[in-house]
């Protein structure tokens, strides 16, 4: 039961983080469309790092 609550918290945190990353990346692309490729790559890397963190927490709690 506590596991599930923890998992929910992790997902909330991760979701907020991913939303921030995605939103800011979209803003940057809108501001500088010519740098879209670089921004996307950076976005994916940061997203992957966040994902690793969230998954790590999920696995540890499982």
């Amino acid at each position, binding site marked *: 039961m506590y596991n599930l609550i923890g998992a929910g918290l992790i997902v909330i945190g991760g979701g907020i983080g991913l939303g921030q990353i995605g939103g800011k990346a979209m803003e940057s692309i809108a501001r500088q469309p010519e740098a879209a490729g670089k921004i996307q790559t950076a976005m994916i890397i940061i997203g992957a790092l966040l994902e690793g963190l969230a998954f790590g927490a999920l*696995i*540890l*709690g*499982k």
Partner: protein
Amino acid sequence: METLLNDFSIGLFFMQAAILLILIVLMRKFAWKPILDALQTREDGIQNALDAAEKAKLEMQNLTASNEKLLQEARIERDGMMKEAREMKNNMISAAKEEAQVQANAMIEQAQVAIEGEKKAAMAELKNHVASLSLEIAEKVVRQELSNKDKQLVLVDSLLAEAKLN
């Protein structure tokens, strides 16, 4: 975490390590090295070709520039020659003109001298004529005077009227 550790198979780990190691070695030797080398040589080739094209373009530009320069020089030389020729022509014309002038002047002078001489000769002859005429008239007048005084006067008058012409 516990179930995961329970699922962790040490045997699979070692098999994977062995397979991955062998695969890396084999792929390096038989695939990645030749592929990357070939890609590198191809890219170098393309770069070299591009550089050569750039160089050729530059050379072409240089050639065109030097051609242009040669042409310019030729044009300047031609212009120079033309100018010289024109000058020469002008010089020749003016020289000829001058000479002709001088000659003409000389001729005119000669002619004047000759005319003057002729005139003098004619004057002298005229004077002689006049003198002789006057002498003749005088002789005739003297002769007529000697005969008739009126007649002598008339004669003198007519003679004088005649003599006024000259």
